[in-house]
């Protein structure tokens, strides 16, 4: 029996192996069509289906162009890795989603097509496309520190405060009056803990400082600043420390949670955490997975100060080298940025449309927004959108990691926010030299 089994396995393995080797050749290109590659980060559970739908539609409407999509795992970090490798071997994609936090890194390290230059050469009729359709604070999301327009803003996400109305009710709080300020968040979290025994609050802990930036800047602090033409850390200010300390104090009091995202979201969805502060991009997933009605409100503010929320999400960059592909890539980008496509995109992902007028457009999102209360809490924050701090230089990514590390130091209570941020600022400054 064993003998036969061995033979069978060997045969199976051999044949599979041979097939795989012969299948390794790259796909043939057709001569009539321009083929362009679109790289994105949308997993199946996060807009992947919408990407396919959009491409299908575009390919049907544009018989002379063939768009091929490619999913990149591990978000923009993974995508950047793949992009760098692809460019090193001379095979670059044409249209790429790039995270806003990679703005300066991409501007300094990747061979992109400058958007105004590309437009004046390949599509002069669209010269004013940006200025006509985007708000100035949104255009700046894709403009590097030295003023280069390296892409078009595509997806915008903002942080919101989700909450579990059942837990609020159980704690004797009115679910229709969610906390508006951080002081109220602290009080609510305490009440939830006292009355229900559940944890009150969690702020997202992704491998970035996005939500924390919203916290710091809404309290009047800043992440980075320019000094003698050099970027230096600015997050060692009293405002920043005060804001950060609020979260740390909640964790210390047992009313706040310090855990990995996956763990905390899981706990929220299973009804063990009252409030979670994270991206509007999580809306659909939360609504689908929770066993209660997920409600939300805008990112809380500090008394008397204006809210400032960094834009998460991505811009579209173009990397095509020859004119034909550049033209095709631009037509594809224009299609993705059309109100109808953006409406589809918003519905599929929960991102906000970067363009003016999509939410008021009856063909766009008018009905959708009217029906979806959770979208409203995000939409209302569009005027408060600021740039996501992007660490420049070859050590930029490591500098950002230093600030991620300090979050763990502060939240674990090992040091006060002021001390920890001071040390991190020294480290970041030495890395940014």
């Amino acid at each position: 029996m064993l003998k036969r089994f061995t033979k069978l396995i060997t045969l199976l393995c051999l044949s599979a192996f041979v097939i795989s080797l012969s299948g390794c050749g790259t796909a043939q290109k057709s001569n009539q069509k321009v083929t362009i590659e679109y790289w994105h980060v949308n997993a199946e559970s996060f807009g992947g289906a919408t990407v396919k739908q959009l491409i299908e539609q575009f390919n049907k409407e544009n018989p002379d162009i063939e768009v091929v999509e490619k999913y990149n795992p591990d978000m923009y970090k993974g995508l950047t890795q793949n992009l760098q490798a692809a460019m090193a071997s001379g095979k670059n994609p044409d249209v790429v989603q790039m995270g806003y936090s990679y703005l300066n890194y991409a501007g300094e390290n990747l061979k992109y097509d400058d958007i105004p230059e590309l437009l004046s050469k390949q599509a002069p009729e669209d010269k004013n496309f940006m200025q006509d359709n985007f708000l100035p604070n949104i255009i700046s999301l894709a403009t590097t520190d030295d003023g280069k327009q390296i892409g078009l803003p595509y997806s915008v996400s903002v942080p919101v405060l989700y909450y579990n109305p059942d837990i609020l009710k159980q704690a004797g709080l009115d679910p229709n009056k969610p906390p508006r300020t951080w002081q109220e968040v602290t009080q609510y979290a305490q009440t939830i803990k006292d009355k229900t025994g559940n944890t009150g609050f969690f702020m997202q802990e992704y491998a970035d400082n996005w939500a924390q930036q919203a916290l710091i800047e809404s309290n009047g602090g800043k992440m980075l600043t320019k000094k003698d033409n050099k970027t230096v850390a600015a997050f060692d200010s009293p405002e920043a420390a005060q804001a950060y300390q609020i979260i740390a104090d909640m964790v210390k009091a047992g009313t706040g949670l310090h855990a990995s995202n996956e763990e905390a979201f899981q706990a929220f969805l299973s009804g063990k955490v009252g409030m979670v502060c994270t991206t509007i991009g999580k809306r659909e997933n939360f609504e689908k997975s929770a066993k209660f009605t997920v409600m939300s409100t805008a990112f809380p503010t500090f008394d008397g100060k204006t809210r400032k929320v960094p834009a998460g999400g991505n811009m579209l960059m173009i990397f095509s080298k020859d004119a034909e592909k550049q033209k095709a890539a631009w037509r594809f980008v224009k299609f993705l940025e059309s109100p109808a496509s953006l409406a589809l995109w918003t519905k599929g992902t929960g991102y906000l449309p970067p363009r003016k007028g999509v939410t008021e457009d009856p063909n766009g999102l008018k009905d959708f927004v009217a029906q979806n209360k959770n979208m409203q809490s995000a939409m209302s924050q569009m005027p408060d959108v600021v740039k996501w701090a992007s660490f420049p230089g070859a050590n930029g990514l490591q500098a950002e990691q230093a600030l991620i590390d300090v979050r763990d130091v502060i939240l674990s209570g090992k040091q006060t926010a002021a001390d920890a941020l001071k040390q991190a600022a020294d480290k970041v400054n030495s890395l940014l030299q």
Partner: protein
Amino acid sequence: MKINKSYNFHWHILLLIVVLIELWPLLFMVSTSFKTMDQIFAATLNPFPTSFILDNYLRVLHTLPLGSYIINTFIVASGITIAKIFTSLIAGFAFVYYDFRHKETIFNALLFTFFIPITVIIMPNYLLISKMGLLNTPLGVILPQLADGMGIFLMRQTMRGIPKPLIEAGQLENASPWHILTRIMLPLIKPAIFAMGIVFFIDSWNQYFWPLLVLNDKASYTLPIALQMFISAEGGSEWGIAMAVATLTSLPPLLLYLVCQRFIINTFMQSGVKG
């Protein structure tokens, strides 16, 4: 020796506890994959779903190109397995059958590659594979793994156990070395090769790190890589589905093991891996 039942009763309790600890996470994975989202959270500790549902599996089948993931994983695993068996077999043979200068040095140098931590060589290899244009191909995953230091070591050990007269008889008949290897030695060491093959296959089926770097096109994913999609930054918290994919990923190596377990364990015992 007489068996003293009361004497070893507590040892059995101890072993059963260990068995429980080792099996429980698996049970947990399988049972969660059959639960609805509600049950996952409400009845976390209950290993048996209150109502047995196949929803998670059906959704996996509908949303993921599962068939191609299985094929990709199979291609990579079998490619690596066959290549490693072949290179180990002939290299092991060279070390047993021939005498040549620097034999020990060469052997040690080959064995040493087995101990090099993967991250140390991963960067240059990644650059090399990408220069060769092999990113996103199964060949790119397989190529750096065509040989295996431990495989060579095991083959040499096994072949040393073959009685010398058998080989000398072959030499007297003027048989070529290839003939001696394939006709005289091979039949004798088949079980060892088979067991080694199973271990190689299971190991490469489960590989995560290197394929994660080489395969970045969703279509070329292997199963373990597909798994990380479920906990990636914005990937979602669909635990039932994640556990269903985890269960499906584990099934082939598990079945392979269960079918051949007596054989695998016995071979392990006989060869008595020694370093």
